[in-house]
C-alpha cells in the first residue's frame, strides 16, 4: 500500500537536493545556512518518526535558530531571462500548460476514480491521504513529461525548485510551527481560559447578543490560534452548546456548522494562518507579507456579519 510515508520520502529527497545545491551555490553568501535549513527539513521527513519527541523539538529549535538569527539567504540559480522565456513560450505554446495541469487533473480524476469505482477496493492508497498521494504521483508524472518535452539540463528541476524555495524561505515551515504552537496552547489550557472569559460576558436572556459573542468569539479566537479547529471546541463548550442550544433551544446543526464558518472568516484576517495568508505572499514575491490579508479583510468582515445573521435567523425559528 502506498502511504503518506512514501510522500515523506519523496519530500526528503527533494529537500536533500535543495540542501546539496545550496551548499555549493557561491552566489549566496549564506549558503551554509540554507544548506543546513533545507537539510534539517529533509532529515525531519526521512527520520522524524524515528526521533524522540525531544529530538524533534531540538530539530525545530535548530530550524528556528537558523531562520531567526538571519542565517538564511537566497540563492540565485542560473535560469532563463525574461526575453528568452517569451521566445520559449511562443515556441512551446500550449504544451506548457499540460504538465502544470497534469498535477491537479491526476489528483482530481484519481480521487474520483478511487472513491467511486472498483479501483478503490484495491486498497492501493492509504485511505486518509488519497488526494495528497495522487498529487505526489501527478508531480512525478508532470516532471517526467516536462523532461521528455523540454529536455532541460539534468539539474534544472532541482535548481528551479530551489529558486522558488529560497524565495519562500522560512515561511515554508511557519504553518507547521504554528500547528505545533497550537498543541502547546492546548496543553497549557489557553482554550479553557478564553472559554471562561467568553462565558462570563454573556448577558441573560438576549439571544442576539449571545449569537454575536459566539460568532465574534469564534472569529477572534481563530485569529489568535490561526486555526478554526482550535477555536471551535472552546467556543462550542463555552457558549454554543450551554447557552445557544440548551439555553435558547437553537438548532445544534446550524449553530455548529455556521459557527465553524464564522471562525473561517477569522482565518482570512490573521497572519497566524500562515499557510493561507503569509506563504502565498512570499510565493508571489509580494512586497508586503500582509498583502494577501489586506485583500481578504473586506470579504471577511461582511461575510462574518452574514454568518451572525444566518445563525440568528435560521437556528431559532
Amino acid at each position: 500500500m502506498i502511504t503518506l510515508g512514501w510522500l515523506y520520502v519523496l519530500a526528503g529527497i527533494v529537500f536533500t537536493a535543495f540542501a546539496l545545491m545550496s551548499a555549493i551555490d557561491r552566489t549566496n553568501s549564506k549558503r551554509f545556512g540554507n544548506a543546513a535549513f533545507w537539510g534539517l527539513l529533509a532529515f525531519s521527513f526521512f527520520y522524524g518518526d524515528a526521533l524522540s519527541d525531544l529530538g524533534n523539538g531540538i530539530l525545530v529549535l535548530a530550524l528556528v535558530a537558523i531562520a531567526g538569527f538571519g542565517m538564511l539567504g537566497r540563492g540565485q540559480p542560473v535560469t532563463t531571462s525574461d526575453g528568452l522565456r517569451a521566445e520559449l513560450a511562443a515556441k512551446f505554446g500550449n504544451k506548457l500548460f499540460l504538465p502544470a495541469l497534469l498535477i491537479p487533473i491526476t489528483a482530481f480524476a484519481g480521487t474520483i476514480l478511487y472513491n467511486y469505482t472498483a479501483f478503490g477496493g484495491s486498497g492501493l492508497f492509504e485511505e486518509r491521504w488519497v488526494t495528497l498521494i495522487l498529487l505526489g504521483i501527478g508531480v512525478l508524472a508532470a516532471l517526467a513529461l516536462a523532461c521528455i518535452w523540454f529536455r532541460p539540463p539534468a539539474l534544472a528541476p532541482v535548481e528551479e525548485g530551489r529558486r522558488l524555495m529560497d524565495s519562500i524561505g522560512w515561511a515554508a515551515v511557519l504553518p507547521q510551527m504554528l500547528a505545533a504552537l497550537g498543541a502547546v496552547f492546548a496543553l497549557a489550557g489557553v482554550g479553557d481560559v478564553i472559554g471562561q472569559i467568553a462565558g462570563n460576558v454573556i448577558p441573560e436572556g438576549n439571544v442576539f447578543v449571545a449569537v454575536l459573542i459566539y460568532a465574534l468569539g469564534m472569529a477572534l479566537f481563530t485569529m489568535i490560534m490561526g486555526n478554526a479547529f482550535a477555536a471551535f471546541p472552546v467556543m462550542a463548550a463555552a457558549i454554543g452548546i450551554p447557552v445557544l442550544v440548551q439555553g435558547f433551544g437553537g438548532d445544534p446543526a446550524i449553530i455548529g456548522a455556521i459557527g465553524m464558518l464564522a471562525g473561517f472568516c477569522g482565518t482570512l484576517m490573521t497572519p497566524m494562518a500562515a499557510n493561507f495568508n503569509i506563504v502565498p505572499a512570499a510565493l508571489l514575491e509580494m512586497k508586503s507579507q500582509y498583502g494577501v490579508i489586506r485583500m481578504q479583510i473586506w470579504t471577511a468582515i461582511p461575510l462574518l456579519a452574514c454568518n451572525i445573521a444566518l445563525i440568528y435567523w435560521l437556528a431559532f425559528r
Partner: protein
Amino acid sequence: MNDYLVLSGILVVIIGFALKMNPLLVVTVSAIVTGLLGQLPLIEVIEAFGKAFNDNRYISVVWIVLPVIGLLERYGLQQRARTMIERIRGATMGRLLLLYLAFRQITAALGLTSVAGPAQTVRPLVAPMAEAAAEKTHGELEEDERQQVLGMSAATDNVGLFFGEDIFVAIASILLIQGVFQSYGYELTPLQLSVWAIPTAICAFFIHGSRLLLFDRRLRRRPRLPAKSSPEPRA
C-alpha cells in the same frame, strides 16, 4: 487571576508580529512562555512542540511541486499564461477570478481541496493570468495596483477553498463539529451539518464576487497609464 497568565503567549505573538520580528522566533518564544506559565517543565514544552511539528509534516509536503513549477517557468509558463489571456476577448481580471472562485468552491465542495492552491495553481497560472487580464483592459498597472491584483488572486483561492470545503461531508472540520456535539449528547450526521454550509457559501460567492467586479470597475475608472515603451513582456 493566575489562570490568565497563560494568555501571555498570545501577547507575545501579537507584539512579535506587530514589531515584524521573525515569525519563527516569535512562535517559539510564545510556545515556551505559554508552557512555562502553564506550569509545564521546559523539556516537556520542547517535547510537545517537537511532536506536534513532526505530526504536521503533511502540511509541508506540498513543496514537492516546486521543481515542476519552476521548470515550467524556465520554459515560459507564466508568459504563455499571459498570452493566452490577452487573446481571449472579454476576459477581465474580475471575470477571470470570479470563474476561478466558482471552480475552487465547487471542487472543494466535492472534497478536492488539494487540486488547487498557492503553489499548484496561483503562482504558475492564476496570478499571471489575472495580471495580464488587468493590463489588457486597464493598461499598464501601477506597482501598488499590481500588488493588489496578486493579493486578490491568492485571496480568491482562499475564499473559494474555505467556503466550499465544508459542503463536503467527509472534511475534517465537519467531523470535528460532529465529534464535539456528540460529546455533549447531540447526534448529528455529517450531511445535516454540511447542508448548513451552503448558505454561507452562497454569501461568500456574492460578497467576494462583487468585490472582484468592483475592482475591475475601479481600475477602469482611473485614467489609463501610458503603455511601457519596451516591447519586452514583464516577468
